[in-house]
């Protein structure tokens, strides 16, 4: 019993360890100059995709509601945060980054959360695939509206070059990215393992039973919309500061899909490790395939299909079982036990 308890914590602890490891690796690569340009360009995107995947997993895996609008929340965060940063830098040129960037992140996150709640309330009426289309529609609306807002750069894009003046952007932004991602991951995992997290999962597993247990289903749905949007907003601020030009058209439904692919590949549910790893792999994959130039996206799409077939085809369940970590562990343990027995037997014989 106690064993299991520590295992729950161990799962989150492992996720955290992996996250710290990833960022430590990034630091070392950048500091020692071992990072190629290609790798340098991947570091910040990997960070915000991790955060996006975790926050979407909270929505899809923990609450069980399919959202195709995550890019929309991200863009709200990106524009709010970057607009604020640009203003602050313009008004107070001396202001150090460690003041305005966290402020931008917080405000970007809060604005995105506000949108999350605003979208979450009408979305309560619809379920499943209909909810997916409602979130997609909201995302498209946000995109269209931003394109038509002149003070946010309109169709040309919003110039964010001034806010991160450093040439070596990855290294400048990395501490903020690491802090934001790790702290956000801790907060989300804490939530999932609490009374509120259990209530959210109860809504996912059986809405009617959850209501019968006195859980305010609507409250938790809207709350998760807000919370997931908050963290997507922070990721958006990171995205905006990493880029030199924010283009609203980039936050389309394909981006939402990209994030969803990470969540599904990583395995939906209360364990966030899968999302983290999938985010890293899926961000790196297209870059790694760059050598194949023209065939890059072709290979990516074929891999995506093959991975999905392999991980979820019911006919392949047996093979997956054999390859799963638990199975390997078990068989190893069995082998060890056998060995130990043999040894024991041998010793007894010696005696």
């Amino acid at each position, binding site marked *: *019993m106690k064993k*299991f*308890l520590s295992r729950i914590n161990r799962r989150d602890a492992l996720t955290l360890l992996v996250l710290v490891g990833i960022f430590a690796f990034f630091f070392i690569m950048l500091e020692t100059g071992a990072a190629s340009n290609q790798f340098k360009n991947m570091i910040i995107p990997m960070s915000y995709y991790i955060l996006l995947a975790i926050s979407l997993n909270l929505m899809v895996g923990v609450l069980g509601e399919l959202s195709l609008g995550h890019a929309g929340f991200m863009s709200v965060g990106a524009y709010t945060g970057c607009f604020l940063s640009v203003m602050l830098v313009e008004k107070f040129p001396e202001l150090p980054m460690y003041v305005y960037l966290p402020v931008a992140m917080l405000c970007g996150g809060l604005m995105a959360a506000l949108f999350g709640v605003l979208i979450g309330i009408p979305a309560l009426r619809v379920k499943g695939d209909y909810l997916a289309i409602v979130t997609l529609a909201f995302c498209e609306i946000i995109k269209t509206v931003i394109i038509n807002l002149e003070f946010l750069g309109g169709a040309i894009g919003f110039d964010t070059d001034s806010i991160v003046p450093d040439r070596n952007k990855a290294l400048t932004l990395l501490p903020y990215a690491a802090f934001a991602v790790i702290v956000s991951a801790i*907060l989300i995992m*804490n*939530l999932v393992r*609490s*009374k*509120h*997290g*259990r*209530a959210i*999962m*109860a809504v*996912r*597993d*059986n809405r*009617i*039973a*959850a*209501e*019968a*247990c*006195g*859980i*305010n*289903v609507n409250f938790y749905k809207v709350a998760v919309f807000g919370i997931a949007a908050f963290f997507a907003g922070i990721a958006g601020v990171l995205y905006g500061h990493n880029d030199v030009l924010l283009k609203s058209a980039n936050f389309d439904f394909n981006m939402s899909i990209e994030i969803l692919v990470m969540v599904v590949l990583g395995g939906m*549910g209360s364990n966030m490790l899968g999302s983290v790893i999938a985010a890293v792999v899926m961000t790196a994959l297209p870059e790694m395939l760059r050598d194949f130039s023209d065939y890059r996206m072709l290979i990516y799409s074929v891999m995506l299909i093959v991975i999905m077939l392999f991980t979820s085809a019911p006919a392949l369940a047996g093979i997956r079982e054999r390859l799963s970590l638990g199975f390997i562990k078990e068989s190893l343990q069995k082998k060890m036990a056998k060995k130990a027995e043999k040894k024991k037997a041998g010793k007894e014989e010696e005696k």
Partner: protein
Amino acid sequence: MSERKTVMSVNGTEMFSPPSNILIPTRDEGKKPVLDVRGLGIDFGGLRAVDEFTITVSPTEISGLIGPNGAGKTTVFNLLTNVYKPTRGAILLDGHPTAGKSVAQVNRMGIARTFQNIRLFDQMTVLDNVRVGMSNNIRCNFAESFLRLPGYFKAEKRSRERALELLSIFHMESEAYTLAGNLPYGAQRRLEIIRALATEPKVLLLDEPAAGMNPSETHALMESIRQIRDQFGIAIVLIEHDMNLVMGVCEGIAVLNFGKVIAKGTPDQIKNNEAVIEAYLGRQEKKEA
């Protein structure tokens, strides 16, 4: 067991009795009923699924709701928990009307239930299923949860201990960390009861708690139902097809047919009631005759 066979004060045995307390166990005498349902009814389209449903349940009474398939028993439970909005009638819980309240609010007011087709949180552990039931009884706000402030650990510890305590009613502590979906059928039914109890109800509605159980499991369940009543001092209303269980454990029984109460009384009265025998128990005898 024999000492639990409380003497009933039977004031009247008329069938379509007005909201009178025909079946108050002596220990509840002089106490206000915990559940007072008057003229409850619902129509689905043109069909009167439940009509003129009137019962009173005293604070520690175990009562049964029986009737042939499709009589509207589960619909009554859905009405009592506000899953369906009644077309007519009123429900008073401890004197407070439940009209206009959400399902969750009704639960918080003190009505908990189990489901005929088991509804557990399959992907969560047995322990967490019970803790979900305790959601409204453990204080732990969002800040404490996000930041793991001391309040979080206190709440987690308390809820874990309390959940294990509740699980011990059915000796399920050893299953605490199994996924609920992986439990055998009987254990799932028992877990549903525990989860409902965790919400600290005044009235517990059990929808076919013995369905799919073997005779010895059913017998154990009977004992547990009494134990729960004694230990928690709550009223229990159960829908059940297993007559041994109903007759063995219920102090008062209402019989439902085509959405209407056709008889009310003690188990003995129900056994010998003509209308009941005709509508329900006697069907087979008639065929044989």
